[in-house]
């Protein structure tokens, strides 16, 4: 195990030196399943990751150059937007959904809370063009990039071709996001036999595996499916989840099962950020299910937990916080490229 970690860090260190494209796939944790992302169609390389990282932090991507991806996906919040229930956009607008944390995306096969996006590469188009988020259009972004003093060179390095295209822009953003891997929490370290749980955490794990594990499947802590979780409709948003884009009655109120990693950094919770604490979320599942008859099968049998058990469950969930991920400078603002004017 130590050897694997060593290999991982070695790979990270050697990033700057130019690494064989496909060897980067080895950064994926040994205790994770095979990624679903097809790396053959977009092989990772350090130049493209750097380009993607620069784009991710550059407000140039929004219509008035005020909002970047990182505005709602901050590295210090595990790439979510702590303390903001709904995403923000240009002109002080507020969106309709809670910006989720971004990590372990190579294991996801659909994106957005309602799964309206089918591939990581095309996900960025949604916030980029949403009027209440970045409010831009792709052609305009590409013009700005082509006329920028830094991007033509970054694109040339990344794609051996100075052409700034939509395809390259999107693939670079994917590459950076694919490197956002959270697999160094206490939970992971216990799996690697580097640390041990406290009795409380261990009891919490037992309760988790009895009550939550069907949807929040380890080690990514999501089965990446869509479930009806008994939340009452917020009439100020009228968000029907997956139904919004499929228009099929069977899809109403279906929302994506989110990962439970990094919960301390990503509050508030749920698709509309209605709960601010983990305890509130657990209370919803034990006592607050609005309509048991229409909840997904997994929630038909009520979850019963004593107050002490809830505390233990929270203790286990906190072992999923990955501080190394959150403070990993490789993912932070590329100060060396994007100078603050």
């Amino acid at each position, binding site marked *: 195990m130590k050897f694997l970690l060593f290999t991982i860090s070695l790979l990270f260190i050697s990033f700057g030196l130019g690494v064989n494209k496909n060897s980067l796939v080895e950064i994926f944790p040994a205790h994770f399943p095979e990624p679903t992302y097809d790396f053959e169609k977009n092989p990772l390389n350090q130049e493209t990751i750097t380009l993607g990282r620069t784009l991710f932090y550059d407000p140039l991507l929004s219509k008035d150059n005020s909002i970047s991806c990182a505005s709602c996906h901050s590295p210090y919040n595990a790439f979510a937007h702590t303390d903001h229930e709904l995403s923000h956009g240009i002109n002080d607008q507020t969106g309709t959904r809670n910006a989720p944390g971004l990590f372990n995306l190579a294991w996801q096969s659909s994106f957005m809370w309602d799964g309206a996006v089918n591939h990581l590469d095309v996900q960025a*188009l949604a916030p980029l063009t*949403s009027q209440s988020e970045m409010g831009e259009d792709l052609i305009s972004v590409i013009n700005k990039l082509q006329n920028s003093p830094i991007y033509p060179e970054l694109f040339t390095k990344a794609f051996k071709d100075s052409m700034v295209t*939509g*395809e390259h822009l999107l693939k670079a953003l*994917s590459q950076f996001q694919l490197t956002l891997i959270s697999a160094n929490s206490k939970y992971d370290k216990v799996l690697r036999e580097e640390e041990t749980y406290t009795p409380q955490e261990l009891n919490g794990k037992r309760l988790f595996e009895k009550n939550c594990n069907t949807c929040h499947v380890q080690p990514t802590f999501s089965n990446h499916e869509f479930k009806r979780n008994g939340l009452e409709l917020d009439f100020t948003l009228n968000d029907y989840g997956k139904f919004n884009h499929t228009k099929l009655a069977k899809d109403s109120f279906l929302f994506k099962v989110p990962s439970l990693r990094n919960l301390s950094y990503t509050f508030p919770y749920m698709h509309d950020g209605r709960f601010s604490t983990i305890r509130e979320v657990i209370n919803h599942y034990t006592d607050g299910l609005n309509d048991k008859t229409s909840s997904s099968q997994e929630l038909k049998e009520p979850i019963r937990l004593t107050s002490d058990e809830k505390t233990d469950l929270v203790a286990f969930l906190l072992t999923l916080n990955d501080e190394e991920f959150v403070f990993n400078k490789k993912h932070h603002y590329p100060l060396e490229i994007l100078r603050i004017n």
Partner: protein
Amino acid sequence: MKRALFFLISLHTCFTIHSQSQSLGIEFTIDNKPLEIGKKIYSTSLKDSLQIDAFRFYISSVTLFNGKEKVCSLEQTHLLIDAEKKETTSIKIPTEKEFNLISFQLGVDSITNSTGAHGGDLDPMNGMYWSWQSGYINLKLEGSSGVCPTRKNKFKFHLGGYSYPNNSLAAVSINIPKGKEKVILIPLDSFFNNADLTTLHSVMSPGINASRLMKIIADSISCEG
């Protein structure tokens, strides 16, 4: 000089084809008259004043046959045809062999729709990709009509949808008559006869209307020799 440039360009675009090629033009009509983008016309058969501002669509998997025998398929799997851009309305056929049937799909197939970002004609920067939900716009038809009860009489059809039950990809298979100059004809009359602009003037998402209208256009495509 110009000639040399032209030669270089053609050499570049069909470097695998060499001299053995022919072309298949695409023409658009309303009332049997050539379609002019951005020009208001009066259609006597439709009894309507019409202006088309944009007509763009994808064709994919172009394959040529002679009888039952496959002659060739185009190397480029997806072509974006834009009625406003002359250079897109002629399909280069990489063979000199005879063919009497052409088959293609109007739109983009589901695999291409679900495998991330693509380049060239499929680059989302071409404006033929939805952003709020994944998927290519197979066909865009925008303009205005006297019967359209909308602001500035505008209509907007962005037709797409790649998955069940809203798959709008439409198959086209047409006979090619003998002759040197072969032209694929896309008349829009049938579309406007069936769309009923008085009630339906905006389709911007996958659904029954998108699939139905795609099929109407696909079925009206023919070839003249």
